[in-house]
């Protein structure tokens, strides 16, 4: 891997990179280098991404027939629960922050490392312990509560390893909190001279906003999971109405975390898209200040909208109105971001490389996801479509169309920096377009199916919905191919890819001002920042 650098930098005998500073297992497992921690995280979440993907592939296959083909009800329920738990907590929540955030955020502010390097590696170990609980729950037969763990089903009625699964998510939550604290401290303390707050790249702002949400919301998730364990294991009456508990209390606590968790997933993707668009349009992001205000206000107002998940739960009509109103408010900054991204393209010098295609997919799919969010914020519509495939389609547009597209944009944008190698751009562009196509074919029909009345989490379903389900399953096959494709060409590029050099995209961020892959402490000198980010027009 290092001979790539040798070609480009003849003056250096053996350029130091974070990859060649040690080859032993312990040099990886005991590392405190933010870049190595990022790689550890990346390997772990990639593993989980494919586990979660395999689970849902079986589900989609099963749904081709209205009466099921190969799974029992029990197996079906366990598969979609597994998919939800793994994709939410072991892929999406850690995805961009712990990998690209970890690797790049310190570099983008001109720092040598995060503020607490040992906390950083510890957070990965915590994540792994959480993951082990989850894998245990999986091997021990799985869980059939849905990823939402609603009580009293989860505490009193469900079979399966609810306690192990809850423990896994509980433990993994601490890794989120540790990462959040670390990033906030890093942004506050480690910025290079001249890196004022108004000069922070939007990706750094997005990681900062995400970290705030992580440390404020995750403890509430921890509490609610602990209460589930207390009730299920120790019989403490908390949610069981027969003992004076309130099952709705759980939903309030759960969504108080899980709604902001959506922003944990999508805010970093917004940051990525801002970086990529600016680079491939050769222009500063339009309305930088509005973008920062939008990021921060989404993070804050996002805490006040959890009740829109509970319009039919028995919550009061007055509460429904208030939460409906606040949900419309939180949509405003998201809309403004879409406008600003679009305006960024105006008057640019645009090249449609693979990262740009993923970023533009993000904008399109996120717009659809956001607009269908307005449907769900409207109480009369939500009453009809909540708990149907309409909701499934909506949040997959945000989390897959949005967050996962952002993840792939980041992967293709920073791959040359991280590995020092270029991937074959044509293959990557085919991948990006296949992803978009597969996504649309998979999830578009689900909106129609949901409005027609198909409930989510149904193993067998009325025959009238079969046509939609077949189309959706065909789309899932395309999507699966599109997600497997990068596995091949990116792995190929590690060995055969062209050396990337410092700055293959001619980008302005500080992370591009060092060698690829970067050396242990990122830069060979202390950087001093003298300009705002995205100074593309003057380069």
């Amino acid at each position, binding site marked *: 891997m290092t001979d790539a650098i040798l070609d480009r930098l003849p003056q250096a005998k053996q350029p130091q990179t974070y990859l060649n500073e040690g080859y032993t297992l312990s040099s990886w497992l005991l590392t405190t280098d933010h870049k190595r921690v990022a790689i550890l995280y990346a390997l772990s979440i990639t593993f989980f991404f494919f586990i979660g993907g395999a689970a849902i592939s079986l589900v989609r296959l099963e749904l081709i027939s209205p009466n099921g083909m190969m799974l029992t009800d*029990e197996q079906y329920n366990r598969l979609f629960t597994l998919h939800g738990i793994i994709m939410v907590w072991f892929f999406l929540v850690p995805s961009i922050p712990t990998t690209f955030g970890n690797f790049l955020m310190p570099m983008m502010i001109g720092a040598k490392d995060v503020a607490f390097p040992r906390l950083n590696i510890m957070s990965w170990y915590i994540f792994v312990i959480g993951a082990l609980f989850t894998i245990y729950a999986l091997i021990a037969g799985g869980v059939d509560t849905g990823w939402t763990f609603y009580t009293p*089903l989860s505490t009193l*009625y469900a079979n399966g390893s609810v306690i192990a699964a809850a423990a896994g998510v509980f433990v993994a939550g601490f890794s989120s909190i540790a990462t959040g604290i670390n990033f906030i401290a890093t942004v506050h303390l480690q910025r290079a001279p001249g890196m004022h707050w108004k000069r922070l790249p939007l990706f750094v702002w997005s990681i900062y906003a995400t970290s705030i949400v992580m440390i404020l919301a995750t403890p509430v998730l921890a509490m609610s999971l602990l209460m589930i364990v207390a009730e299920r294991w120790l019989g403490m009456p908390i949610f069981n109405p027969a003992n004076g508990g309130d*099952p709705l209390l759980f939903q309030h606590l759960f969504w108080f975390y899980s709604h902001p968790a959506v922003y944990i997933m999508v805010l970093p993707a917004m940051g990525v898209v801002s970086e990529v668009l600016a680079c491939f349009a050769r222009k500063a992001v339009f*309305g930088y200040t509005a973008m920062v205000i939008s990021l921060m206000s989404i993070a804050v107002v996002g805490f006040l909208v959890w009740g829109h998940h509970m319009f039919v739960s*028995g919550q009061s009509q007055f509460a429904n109105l208030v939460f409906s109103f606040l949900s419309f408010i939180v949509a405003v900054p998201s809309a403004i971001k879409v406008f600003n991204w679009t305006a960024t393209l*105006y008057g640019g010098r645009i090249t449609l490389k693979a990262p740009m295609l993923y970023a533009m997919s993000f904008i399109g799919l996120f717009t659809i996801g956001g*607009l269908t969010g307005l449907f769900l914020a*409207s109480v009369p519509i939500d009453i009809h479509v909540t708990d149907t495939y309409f909701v499934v389609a909506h949040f997959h547009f945000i989390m897959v169309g949005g967050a996962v597209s952002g993840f792939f944009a980041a992967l293709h944008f920073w791959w040359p920096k991280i590995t020092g190698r270029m991937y074959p751009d044509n293959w990557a562009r085919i991948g990006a377009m296949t992803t978009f196509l597969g996504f649309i074919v998979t999830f578009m029909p689900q909106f129609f199916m949901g409005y027609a009345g198909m409930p989510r989490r149904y193993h067998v379903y009325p025959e009238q919905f079969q046509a939609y389900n077949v189309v959706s399953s065909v789309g899932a096959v395309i999507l699966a191919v599109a997600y497997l494709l990068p596995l091949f060409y990116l792995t190929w590029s590690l060995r055969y890819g062209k050396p990337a050099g410092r700055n293959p995209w001619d980008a302005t961020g500080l992370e591009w001002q060092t060698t690829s892959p970067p050396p242990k402490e990122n830069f060979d000198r202390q950087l001093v920042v003298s300009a705002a980010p995205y100074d593309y027009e003057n380069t």
Partner: protein
Amino acid sequence: MNPFVYFSRVSNEAIAVDHIFFALTALSIVIVGVVFLLLLVFSVRFRADNPVHRRKPPRIFEYIWTPATFFLFLFIFWWAAANQLGALDHPKDSLDIHVVAKQWMWKVEQPNGVREIDEIHAPIETPVRLVMTSQDVIHSLFLPALRIKQDVLPDRITYLWFTAQKPGIYHLLCAEFCGTEHSRMTGRLVLMTQPDYARWSRSQGPSRGLAAQGEKLFRSLGCSGCHGPNSSVHAPDLAGVYGREVHLSDGRVVTADEAYLRDSILKPGSAIVAGYKPEMPSFAGTVGEDDMVKLIAYLKSLAGHTTINQQGERR
């Protein structure tokens, strides 16, 4: 069955929901269309090798689209919410059908005591109210043709109401994941004309009305020992209590609805009528959800009777 239940116009409320849905869909198509079009046009026109004149987008756009978005969203909120407000109040003089959900079936009792499983028969052009509770986990009764659903909770009563316009057989689904056979917890909503419904009710064989069964329980459980007309125990009078405002000893004033009556039977200590001692035992565990339906039906039937409250009065 029609695959597009969308357009079946089963109730006026469902049509109203469809209208909001179609309007939002049209708006979304326009916005998505504009965004996709701009992405495409900009990508082509401002491609790197195209020697076209380039200007910066004017800042003024920000000052236009920010308030425009805000007020558009505010308008949608107002429009959707205004539509919802009309449906806040329970209908008056509704036909009350009781629903008890359990893993994994719907148990239904018609006002005249006819029992159904996984099926609700109801007349059109009549306000119908479903009075629902669950025996175990949370379920959700979903009637897609009517565009309504409501979660059904253990130990609590929730309601769903509608006035249908069009006879037919429609889906009845459980929408909240409730365990292994969740997707099989389905049934039929059978909407009939009023004469058909009356005929159907009669044809279900001789069955005693819910209220009559409740009255029997009222005696066998010993309720009448204290609350009955000839009792010497100091207990509140229950004739006409349903729907009345009740003053509680802690100063609260509550309306005696199903939920209140239910709580008073299961958790009598939670709401003591002003002027009475908390001495009633709890019937939790004794009175199941089926019996509860009957007891409440009986108490509701007392609304018109004035003869028995003579001796139940406070002394």
